[in-house]
C-alpha cells in the first residue's frame, strides 16, 4: 500500500513546495533529465523529461531552436510546431504527462507554471496482415498494439461523425488508455452505458491486454464460453459497429473486443461475405457441423466401444474391433491419452518459435502418432477420429472459441465413460442449458430462441445481400434496416424472355 502511495499519490503534497516535490519524486529515476538551456542560474529555460520516452529528433528540430530567443511560455506555446502543448501548474497533470513522453518547460526551476510539450517517441510495429484470423480472400489488414492507429483504421472505414469514442484510463499502475467506440444512433444507449459503467468499476493494477478487460466486464466469468469476441480484423469490427455493437479498444492490445455478441457470431468468418452466398453458406454450415463433430467424436467412440458396440453393424464392427484388438487399454484411457497428447503437441507448437513449431508438428503428429499405433497403444480408427476432431475444432473463426470447443470434450469423454451415450447427451444438454442461461451484456447469448427472422438473414445463414435487409435484432440496434433499396437480379436478356 505504501509503495502505491509513493507511486501515485500526489495528494499529500503541500502547496508551498509543489514544484520541488514533483521534481524530487521524478529525479529518483536515472533516466529522468532535468537540465537548463542557458549557463546562468537565473535565465530560462529548465527542461525536464524522461530520456527513454521522448524522441530526441523532435526535441532538437522542433523545440530547442525556439528556445534561443528567451520568449515567454505563452509565446512559445504559439510558435512551437507540436500539436499537443499544455500550459499548466497542476503537479498531478505534469507528472502524468511527463510519464507519457512530454517535455516540461519552465522559466525558473522554482516556477509552478509549466509548459508541457508532446515529444513522445511512439514506436510500434507497422500495420500488417492479421496473424490469428487470416483469410484467403478479402481484406487482410489487422490491428496493431497502438490504440490511436487502431481507431484511425476504424474511422477510415466508417467516416461518419456518428462514430463516437469514449476514452478512459483503466489500471491503477498501468493507466491504460481504453476507448469505447460505437455508432451513435445505432448502438443501444443502454448497452453503451453498461459497458462504460463496468469499465469504470474495474479496479485492477494493470491491464495488459483487451482480454483482461473483457473478462473483467463479462456477465459470467465462470463460463467456458467467451461472451465477447476479440478480433484483430478491421472489417469485422467495422461491420459489428454498423450492426449496433460496441467496440472496446485497449492500448497495447492488437485485439479489439466486440460486445454484446451471440454464440453464432463466433461461427462467422468475414470471408463468408467474399464468396457467392451459396458457397459462403456452405462453409458456414460446414463450420457448425465441424465444431459439433469435434465435441462429439471422441466421446461417441468411448461410449460405443465401452457400452454400446451393438450400435455398429457387424462388418464395420469387425474393422473397429480389429484395429484395437492388440490395445491393452480400455477405450476411455486410449481416447483420453490421445486427446491429451494432441493438446500437448498443439501447446508446444504455440510456445515454440514458428520454424521449430512447424517441424514439431511433423514429429508430434506424424511420427508419434504412427509409432503409437504401431506399438499397439491406440487403434488406427481412434487416431483418425481424434485427428478429425482436432482438425474440426480449428475451423472456428475465433481462436478463443476453438479452445473452448476443444476443452468441452474432456468432461464429455468422462461422462461417456461413466454413462455411455446417455452421458454424452447429458453433457450436451448441460452445455445447452448453460448456453441458454448465458447472457452477453444482459442479452441472450444463444440467439437460437426466441427465433428472430433476422437470424436467418445473416447469422445462422448468410443470404444474398439483396435479402439481408435488416440488422440482427437480438442486441436491439436503434437502426432496424441496413438496406433501403432492394436490387434483385435483372431479368436475363435473351430470346426466351422476349
Amino acid at each position, binding site marked *: 500500500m505504501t509503495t502505491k502511495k509513493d507511486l501515485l499519490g500526489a495528494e499529500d503534497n503541500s502547496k508551498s513546495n509543489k514544484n520541488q516535490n514533483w521534481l524530487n519524486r521524478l529525479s529518483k529515476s536515472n533516466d529522468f533529465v532535468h537540465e537548463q538551456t542557458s549557463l546562468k542560474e537565473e535565465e530560462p529555460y529548465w527542461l525536464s523529461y524522461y530520456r527513454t520516452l521522448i524522441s530526441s529528433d523532435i526535441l532538437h528540430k522542433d523545440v530547442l531552436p525556439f528556445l534561443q530567443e528567451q520568449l515567454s511560455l505563452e509565446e512559445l506555446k504559439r510558435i512551437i510546431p507540436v500539436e499537443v502543448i499544455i500550459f499548466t501548474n497542476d503537479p498531478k497533470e505534469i507528472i502524468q504527462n511527463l510519464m507519457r513522453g512530454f517535455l516540461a518547460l519552465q522559466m525558473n526551476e522554482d516556477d509552478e507554471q509549466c509548459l508541457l510539450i508532446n515529444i513522445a517517441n511512439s514506436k510500434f510495429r507497422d500495420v500488417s496482415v492479421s496473424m490469428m484470423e487470416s483469410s484467403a480472400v478479402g481484406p487482410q489488414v489487422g490491428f496493431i498494439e497502438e490504440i490511436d492507429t487502431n481507431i484511425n483504421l476504424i474511422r477510415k472505414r466508417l467516416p461518419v461523425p456518428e462514430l463516437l469514442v469514449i476514452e478512459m484510463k483503466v489500471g491503477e499502475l498501468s493507466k491504460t488508455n481504453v476507448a469505447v467506440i460505437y455508432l451513435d444512433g445505432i448502438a443501444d444507449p443502454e448497452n453503451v452505458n453498461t459497458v462504460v459503467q463496468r469499465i469504470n468499476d474495474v479496479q485492477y493494477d494493470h491491464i495488459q491486454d483487451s482480454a483482461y478487460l473483457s473478462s473483467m466486464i463479462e456477465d459470467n466469468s465462470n463460463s467456458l464460453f467467451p461472451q465477447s469476441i476479440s478480433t484483430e480484423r478491421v472489417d469485422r469490427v467495422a461491420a459489428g459497429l454498423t450492426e449496433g455493437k460496441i467496440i472496446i479498444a485497449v492500448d497495447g492490445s492488437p485485439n479489439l473486443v466486440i460486445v454484446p455478441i451471440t454464440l453464432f457470431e463466433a461461427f462467422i468468418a468475414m470471408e463468408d461475405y467474399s464468396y457467392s452466398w451459396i458457397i459462403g453458406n456452405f462453409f458456414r454450415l460446414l463450420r457448425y457441423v465441424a465444431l459439433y463433430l469435434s465435441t462429439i467424436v471422441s466421446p461417441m467412440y468411448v461410449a460405443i466401444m465401452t*457400452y*454400446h458396440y*451393438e*450400435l*455398429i*453393424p457387424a462388418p*464395420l464392427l469387425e474393422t473397429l474391433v480389429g484395429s484395437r484388438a492388440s490395445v491393452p487399454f480400455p477405450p476411455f484411457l486410449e481416447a483420453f491419452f490421445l486427446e491429451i497428447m494432441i493438446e500437448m503437441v498443439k501447446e508446444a507448437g504455440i510456445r515454440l518459435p514458428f520454424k521449430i513449431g512447424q517441424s514439431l508438428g511433423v514429429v508430434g503428429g506424424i511420427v508419434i502418432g504412427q509409432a503409437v499405433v504401431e506399438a499397439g497403444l491406440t487403434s488406427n480408427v481412434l487416431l483418425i477420429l481424434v485427428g478429425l476432431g482436432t482438425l474440426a475444432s480449428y475451423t472456428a473463426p475465433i481462436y478463443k472459441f476453438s479452445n473452448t470447443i476443444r476443452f468441452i470434450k474432456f468432461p464429455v469423454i468422462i461422462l461417456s465413460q461413466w*454413462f*455411455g*451415450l*446417455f452421458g*454424452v*447427451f*447429458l453433457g450436451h*444438454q*448441460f452445455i*445447452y*442449458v*448453460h448456453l*441458454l*442461461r448465458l447472457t452477453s451484456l444482459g442479452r441472450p447469448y*444463444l440467439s*437460437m*430462441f*426466441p427465433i428472430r427472422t433476422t437470424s436467418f438473414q445473416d447469422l445462422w445463414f448468410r443470404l444474398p445481400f439483396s435479402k439481408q435487409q435488416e440488422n440482427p435484432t437480438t442486441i436491439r440496434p436503434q437502426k432496424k434496416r441496413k438496406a433501403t433499396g432492394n436490387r434483385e437480379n435483372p431479368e436475363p436478356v435473351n430470346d426466351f424472355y422476349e
Partner: protein
Amino acid sequence: MQVNKRHQVSPYLVYFIVYNSQVGVGILGFQRTIAAKAGYDAWIGVIVAGCFVQVFIWIMYKLLEKADGDIVDVHSKVFGNILGSVLSFIIMIYYWLASVSVLLGFIEIIQVWMFPTLPSWIICSLILGLVYYCVSGGFRIVVGVSFLSFIFPQIMLIVLYIFPLREAHFTNLLPIMNHSFNDMFDAVKNSMYTLAGTEALLMFYPFIRDAKSSKKFAHLAVLFTTLLYTVSAIVSFTFYSESQIKETIWPELSLIKIIRLSYLERFEYLYISMYLIIVSALLALLLWCSTRGLKRILKKKQKNFLIILSLLSVVISQLINEQFKVVLDKYVTQMNLWIFYGYIPILLIILTILRRRKQNG
C-alpha cells in the same frame, strides 16, 4: 398477479411449451395400454381424447382469463386464502407426483434397455441435477429447453417411422369400429393420461406476453401431439399383431430396433439417450410449475422447494419397488382425470356464477 415483463415469453412459444408438457415417456409405451381392450380401434380413442384436451385447453383459458393470473389466484379468489391455498397445494403435489412418475418411467427404461446395474438414485440425481440447473435459470430457460425438446427429437420421432412403415400391414386396422362403447371408452381414458400435461398452463399462463393471442398456438400444439400419438399408434398397430402388441411393454422402442443402416443399427440406444432431452424438459416444466406454486402459496424461496422436491424424488426413486410404482401411476392418472377434467370445469362454472352475482348485485 402480474409478472415482470422481462420474464415473459412470446405467445408463439406456448406451442413448444404445450408440446413439451404432453410428450413424455408415455409415447414409448401407450400403444399397449390403449390396445388392451379396444384392440386395433384404439387409435380412434387417441383422436377422441385429443378433442377432449382441446376442450380442456379452452376451459383453462376461460378460467385464467377471468382471474387474470394462475390457478393460485383463481383459488384465492373463489375460495378465499386458506381453503384456496389447500386446493392449490393439492395441484402442486399433483405436478410433483407427475414429475416423479415420468422420472421413474424413464429410469425404468434406462435400466431395462441400457444399464441394468446402474442404481436408480444415480440416474435420478444426474437428471435432476440437470433439471435444477435448468429451473434455477427461470421460466425463460424452461421454455428454451422445451424448444429444443421439440426440434431435436422430432428427427427421431417422425423420421424413424419410415422404417417400420415399410413393413406395415394396414389391413390390420380393418374393420374399423368393431369394439363396444365400453372398450372404446377405456382406450379414451388411457389416452387421456398419455396426452395429459397441458394442465401446466394453469401455472405458466401469467408468463405469456399477450396471453390471449397465444390460444391458437396451444390448440395447434395439442393438435400436433394428437396427430403424433395417432400416427405412433397406427404405426405400431400396423406393425405388430394384436397379441404381440399386448405383450410388448414399449412398442415404440421395439419398433426402432428393426432399423438398420450400413453404419448404424440398434437405434434404440441412441433414441433412449436422446430421450433425455425430452424428459429433462418435461421434468423442468413440471417441477417449475410445482415449485412456483409452492412459492406463491407458502411465500418461501422457490430454490428451497426445488431442492426439497428433488431430494425427495431421489429418495423415492431408490426406495420404490415395482408395486408402488404401479400404485403411484394409478394415483397420478386418477388425480389427473378427477382434478383436471372433473374439478376444473366445475371451478369455471363457480367462478362464472360468482362473477355474474357480483355484476348483478
